[in-house]
């Protein structure tokens, strides 16, 4: 469970930091850069979430559906 809580905090931290960078870049007038930063942060988070969801689905399959 400890590892799980860490992952959640990591995702939230990425979210806050990305929002900060977004605001700073916007203040500097580099809007397109700000959007790229947000997009890349989102992709990184999505990768982490996807691995968790993959684990969940494999578990459900093995518990309920009697497959590998």
């Amino acid at each position: 469970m400890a590892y799980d809580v860490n992952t959640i905090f990591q995702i939230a931290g990425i979210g806050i930091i990305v929002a900060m960078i977004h605001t700073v870049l916007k203040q500097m007038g580099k809007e397109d850069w700000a959007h790229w930063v947000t997009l890349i942060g989102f992709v990184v988070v999505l990768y982490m979430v996807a691995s968790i969801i993959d684990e969940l689905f494999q578990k459900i399959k093995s518990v309920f559906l009697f497959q590998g």
Partner: protein
Amino acid sequence: MEVIQIVGFGLIAVFLIIIVREQNPALASAIALAAGGMIFLFVTVPLQSAVELIATLSGQAGINQMYIQTLLKIIGIAYLAEFGAHLARDAELESIASKIELAGKMLIIMLAVPIFQVLIETVMSLLPGGV
């Protein structure tokens, strides 16, 4: 006390989501997805032994393995459909949520058809003058 751990984990996730949601709604729903997945993963590990116990007990009782398998599959499909529908509903996409639920119900009906068939055949054979 696993309950305290799970509830605490859920509350932490909720607060983080509330903080992040103001700046970045997409990331907030990603956190919700991850938290939901983790909570269920945490519960599934003890659940596995219970499911195996049900399978062995039904095997000893001489119940056809097909029925138990269908039942467990239906539970799995119901949980997955619920999970996806709740996620879509959290993102305020009511239409997608209801379609996921509809699809889950359809799949459950398709899985239950053989059991219905057996039931109807049994009733028909009990009826006097039946087939």
